[in-house]
């Protein structure tokens, strides 16, 4: 039944493309209906499989001569991320209710993207996973290039080239894994159980990890993300930061780390203090955290602040993966969900609530408008999202970052200091953006925008509330998800990882 999340999205995209009517409302409603239906399916799947262990949805031979199967499975990690995709999918559509140019095409590309994301999270055949992973690239390009803003064609092309280079690296690793394991199967369980020689793992692991890492905003390959986020229309930024970057992190965990666990092991010598790829990526992740936060601190463009904050938060996920202990890894998965929700919310406020009304994202220009008085709901939402993003207790960010912090403390005690710097800078940039955009509070008379701003609409309110509630749920009951993530991390698939360094 979970497979229908994919099929429904694709069918919805096709239906929208073929829809003869020019009515924009119909297209919006259809897209909303499809996204709600997929979310309900994901939720039902989540509720049905509370044990979090892996179960098969579909498995039929696809390309017999190569031993490739059309195999969809899910475990606790995939279920958690499916739920995230469902929520973000609905909110993205609600936040794009104001799109009025080529509406049908917009939602068709949107649903195509959502369907492919569901596909990646459900695929358990590496070939199939790669197919879905690549399908994601194309709608992203068109969503940004057609409906985007600032330097949209540049941003879209940069994003696509980066993604494609990343997937090229993944493809090399995938082909190598297939051939070296005897050309029998590309099923993830089979490959995870196959013992590749340590030399192979030593080059294949960094290759595949970096390949997926590019999409996860791994420093220094992150530069596509801020430009892409800024150029994208609101819904696309939400999807991009909310779920597409998670695909990268998911691939790192599910493919790179399970297939080539020995690649994480020590090299046997030290260069510049690095003794393994694990050290290298952990340090890159920390640089990402600190660098993203510090750059966000000096941005003039409101959306760039959020764009760089994504780099910082994605750094937490990658660092959590590199801790290789259960609390760090589960923290990374929770952070995927948390950042997905919060990035969606922040981009929703900045892109939809503020930018589409004021037509400027310049913090200096936004301040004098006294937005907290004109659109108080936007200010309220941003305060909540900002608090969650800073990691205040009670919100999702706290739970996730605490777990990752404990994990890091166990594995890399020295790095925790830099993580702390990142957290402090995180408070600072959110505070600065919030203050400058909404509460500039200059004593002088307010310079109202040239034309009165339309009030916040119902779809925006619904989406914002949905996201805030989700963040609080994750923050207060992380157990809900940990309960399914732990069994997944303890499954045989992650055996190699557990025996390796864990």
């Amino acid at each position, binding site marked *: 039944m979970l497979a229908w999340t994919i099929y429904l999205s694709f069918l919805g995209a096709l239906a929208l493309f073929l829809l003869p009517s020019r009515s924009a409302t119909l297209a919006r409603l259809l897209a909303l209906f499809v996204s709600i239906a997929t979310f309900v399916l994901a939720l039902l799947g989540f509720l049905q499989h509370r044990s979090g262990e892996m179960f098969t949805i579909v498995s039929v031979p696809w*390309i017999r*001569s190569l031993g490739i199967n059309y195999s969809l499975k899910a475990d606790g990690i995939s279920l958690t991320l499916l739920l995230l995709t469902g929520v973000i999918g609905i909110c993205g559509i609600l936040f794009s209710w104001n799109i009025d140019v080529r509406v049908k095409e917009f939602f068709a590309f949107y649903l195509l993207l959502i369907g492919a994301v569901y596909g990646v999270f459900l695929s358990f055949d590496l070939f199939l996973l790669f197919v879905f992973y690549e399908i994601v690239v*194309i709608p992203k390009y*068109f969503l940004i290039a057609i409906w985007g803003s600032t330097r949209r064609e540049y941003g879209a092309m940069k994003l696509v*080239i980066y993604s*494609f280079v990343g997937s090229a690296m993944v*493809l090399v690793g995938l082909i190598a894994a297939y*051939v070296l394991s005897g*050309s029998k199967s590309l099923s993830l369980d089979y490959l995870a159980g196959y013992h590749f020689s340590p030399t192979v793992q030593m080059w294949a692991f960094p290759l595949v990890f970096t390949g997926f890492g590019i999409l996860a905003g791994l420093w220094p390959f992150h530069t596509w993300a801020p430009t892409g986020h800024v150029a994208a229309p609101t819904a696309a930024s939400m999807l991009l930061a909310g779920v597409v970057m998670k695909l990268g992190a998911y691939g790192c965990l599910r493919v790179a780390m399970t297939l080539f666990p020995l690649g994480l092991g020590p090299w046997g010598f030290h260069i510049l203090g690095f003794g393994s790829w694990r050290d290298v990526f952990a340090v890159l992740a920390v640089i990402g955290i600190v660098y993203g936060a510090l750059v966000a601190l000096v941005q003039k463009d409101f959306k760039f602040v959020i764009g760089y904050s994504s780099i910082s938060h994605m750094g937490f996920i990658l660092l959590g993966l590199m801790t290789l202990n259960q609390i760090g890894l589960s923290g990374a998965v929770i952070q995927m969900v948390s950042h997905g929700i919060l990035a969606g919310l922040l981009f929703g406020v900045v892109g939809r609530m503020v930018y589409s009304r004021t037509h400027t994202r310049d913090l200096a220009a936004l301040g004098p408008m006294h937005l907290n008085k004109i659109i108080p709901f936007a200010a309220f939402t941003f305060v909540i999202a900002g608090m969650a993003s800073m990691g205040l207790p009670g919100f999702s960010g706290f739970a996730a970052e605490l777990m990752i912090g404990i994990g890091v403390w166990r594995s890399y005690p020295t790095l925790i200091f830099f993580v702390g710097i990142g957290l402090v800078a995180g408070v600072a940039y959110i505070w600065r953006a919030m203050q400058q955009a909404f509460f500039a509070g200059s004593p002088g008379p307010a310079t109202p925008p040239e034309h009165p701003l339309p009030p916040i609409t119902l779809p925006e309110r619904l989406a914002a509330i949905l996201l805030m509630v989700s963040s609080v749920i994750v923050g207060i009951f992380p157990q809900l998800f940990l309960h399914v993530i732990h069994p997944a991390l303890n499954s045989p698939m992650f055996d190699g990882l557990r025996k390796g360094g864990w």
Partner: protein
Amino acid sequence: MNAIDLGQLLRLLWPEITILIAALVALSVDLAGLRHRSLRLRFLSASFIGSIGCAIAIDELLHVSTQGALLGNIFVATPLTHLVQIALLVITILTLLLAVDSDFTDHVGEFVLLVLLATTGMLFLVAAQDLLIIFVSLELLSLSAYILAGFDKLRPRSSEAALKYFLFGGMSAAFLLFGFSLLYGLANSTNLPQIAAAVQAQPLNPILILAIVTTVIGFGFKIAAAPFHFWAPDVYQGAPIPSAALIASGSKVASFFIFFQLMVLGFAGAEGVASLAHFRSGWVPVLVVVSVVSMVLGNLVAITQTSLRRLLAYSAVAHAGYMLLAYVAHSQQSLAALLYYVATYSLATLGILGILVATEKQLGNDSIAGMAGLSRRAPFLSACLFVFILSLAGIPPLSGFFAKFFLFLSLLTVNPGSKLLLWLIILAIGMSAVSLYYYLRVLKSAFVADPPAESTPIQSSLLLRLLVGVLAGGVIVLGCAPDVILNQILKVIQASGL
């Protein structure tokens, strides 16, 4: 030499004969009956007759049971050659149908005759096992193609294309013939297996190396591999679209196939090793160089093109580079990968040229910028363009992706430890990341850019839309269910025991 069994000859060559008969019928019907009718009717009837001939030939090939060598091994008939011939005939039918909407000439009968003659050349080429026959069939194909390229007598570009094609083609034919004569001198035979035996019996000598190099030059020209590609941009751009379609698809399929046969059968034993550590000269190192040059040059030069047809030409150079990797591996699996690749590549190229038939008629040129806003002026055609372009770029689940994937797999399977092959694959995958840039430029123009102010919807005939739709469907189906055709290819290759 054995006595020639004319009955057997007739039976085995029946498809080729059918095509010739169809060509003559098409010519005479056009000349005798339809001289003064409308151009469209003439094209329709001639293409229809030609297609029926091809369909009958396909039917014959499907039901023929005779196998084996003929005329002392000059020709072979195996399931594999039959499969390739069927593919060629299908491509010819598609090319003929593509021509129906054209108005570049009023010599309709002659045009169809030449297309079918070229097809006959291809059919012979695929079955040939003898240097002389290879050369003669290749010339039949080439001479027809030269004329086809220059068929639009009113446009100077077309004549320029034909002249360039002819001059480069003539040169390469001279190289090829020179190489063949050296081979004959070495082996005292024109038969491929006997040449292979002679090649194996002696160490690699300069004459053999010269023969290898000249052969590669001769075929490198036909498959538009760099640095023998100079004719391609002009021919792709200048030739009438149906001629360009034949040159870009059918002629490629046949040339790639026979080139593979010639290298693997004729030069067996002179492969050489192309890795730095154990370098041994032979034809593999030569092809590695040609392949790398083609991939790099084709992809990089394509970036700067402003005309869609020229872009296709340079992308063809790049694709030739990828396909040459199959020669480097030279295994059964890599032959299957090559055939799958070239077939799906032809489908996508034919599709794009088909779309150009409609757009050029109304836009007047094939510039990429001129296609701005095509998605709103011709939604169906641009949806198909989307499929073809992304297939060429290698985006799953379209067939172009699977073709690349299978090709790279077959390469590594031969010799999993080989560093050289791994680096070649990395280069090829990296280059296909580059190619996405220029392919997306085309789609950007069609989907992102706004149409010019007073633009009208682009009209296209039902037949054309049907044809393009079928091609797009083929690209999608072959990508989603590659097993359909892949198993068949693998089976016939095994049955033919290459």
